């Protein structure tokens, strides 16, 4: 069973703000799902390579040719806040003295 502290740690890693009710609900639900997933531990996978893609491993290269990107106004029109044709965000660093 996950602890509340573990749930809060995961939520912080995932940058998710959760209400106390959500934390408790996910603590129970994630515990049940992880308990179900624990059956994978019983399988012997010694010598079995992991599959990250079902396609044959290959390098994909294309000619490095300059081409127009997407238009700046098109990209900025979904932005919550724009200033001087750039995305504006709240302070990144703590501003308290």
């Amino acid at each position, binding site marked *: 069973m996950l602890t509340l502290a573990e*749930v809060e*740690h*995961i*939520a912080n*890693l*995932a*940058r*998710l*703000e*959760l209400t106390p009710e*959500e934390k408790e609900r*996910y603590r129970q*639900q*994630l515990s*049940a*799902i*992880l308990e*179900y*997933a624990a*059956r*994978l*531990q019983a*399988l012997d*996978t010694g010598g*079995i*390579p*992991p*599959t*990250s*893609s*079902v*396609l044959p491993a290959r390098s*994909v290269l*294309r000619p490095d040719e300059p081409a127009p990107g*997407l*238009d700046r106004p*098109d*990209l900025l*029109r*979904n*932005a*919550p*806040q724009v200033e001087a044709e750039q*995305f504006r*965000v*709240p*302070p*990144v*660093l*703590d*501003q308290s003295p």
Partner: protein
Amino acid sequence: MSALTDLSVHASLDLLRAGQVTSRELTQAALERISALEPRLHAFLTLTPELALRQADAADLRWRAWQHDPAGDPPPLLGVPIAVKDVLALKDVRCTCGSKILDNFVPPYTATAVERLLAAGAVIVGKTNCDEYAMGSSTENSAYGPTFNPWDTNRVPGGSSGGSAAAVAGRYVPAALGTDTGGSVRQPASFCGVTGLKPTYGRVSRYGLVAYGSSLDSVGAFARSAADLAPFFTIMAGYDTRDATSMNLPVPKIDLDGAPDLDGMRIGVPQEYFIKGIQPEVEAAVRQAIVTLQSLGAQVRPVSLPHTEYALPVYYLLAPAEASANLARYDGVRFGLRQPAENMIGMFKASRGAGFGPEVKRRIMLGTYALSAGYYDAYYGQAQKVRTLIKRDFEQAFEIVDAIAAPVAPTTAFRIGEHTDDPLAMYLEDVFTLPANLAGVPGLAFPVGFDRRSLPIGMQLMGPHFREEILFRLAHAYQQATGWHLRQPDLSI
């Protein structure tokens, strides 16, 4: 003549070619039926009537020019109305992914699959409802409310592409696009009694598909028969430099003309898909359909996919892990919902906490856990290794058979709200669809009967990588010999 909205893709094209109907008439009929039935089905999140009528008029101009001077072939879907799942980008049309966090997002470009259908002349009437970010098996996880099953509006249409399946079953449009990461085309096709294809991974470009589980996502489609579905597959498929996982392979011609003849085709029946807990009517209908394929000349033999039972835990570790990375981009900086906060990290957390729904948060949490320090090897790493075993099961089976026949889901459509309090019970609905995504193989689902409540039962055929034409040939032969796919829900207006 039957209603214009009853016409198949092929019948619509025949009438357009003969000048007996216009694309504007087909499109108007679709829009009228949508406005009459949407209060009951809620298949759409955004309708695009002006765009659709503009495209229809352009198609009609091209048809008239062709009729005056029939040089060359007109585009293969010229003037046919379709719908697109709201996880595929269409430039300048809102794309929500069923999420509040993208409520006002307008994509600056069009997905390759959609672009190819537009180039083929298809007319887009709107964007369909789906589980938020395609995470779900019932469309109940849409932030905009569920879609209702046209066969019984107290029941779910399946998911996550439930809006597209309902739009085709409800005869809004003859075909619609969906996406399948863990069964999200095949399961709603089964629940709604339509034909749905999940192509091989890498067959259709994912460019412009909002990413969920990038190693599993595939773009597919729904129609009312395999014959109607085939052109959508061949048009969307093929190499695209904008998706590094799209394979540079020739797209097969799908020739369904001629008498159905399955001589020499070998169909495998996996015992692991006929387990305790499956609705008896589903098993009976699927077994009967296999007998029908046999009577058409196919050889049937048992096969074993021994790691099938592990597909569910593997999927529900890998897909959330990939999702937790893919959905990191929704942080309130460049697009989507932003909640005010004192600093940037606070803004990330508040925006994501307010914008994502319960299932998306659950999967982000689950995936973050599976990838976190101390748990990575036990969960994510082990799941990737078991994925290899599941993939090998299919490779071994396809050494002795051309296709595998199995139920799509253990039950027919369940009631709205039946599983919403128990995520694990909802995940168990996906037990038969997940393996194909983990192995990357194609799957084609189509109706093979009805249960005592008159709900459709679906069968899926799975084939080797990049051999979709086998699935089409088998399903088309079956549909030539039977009439389940012709049944329609009673939606009298």
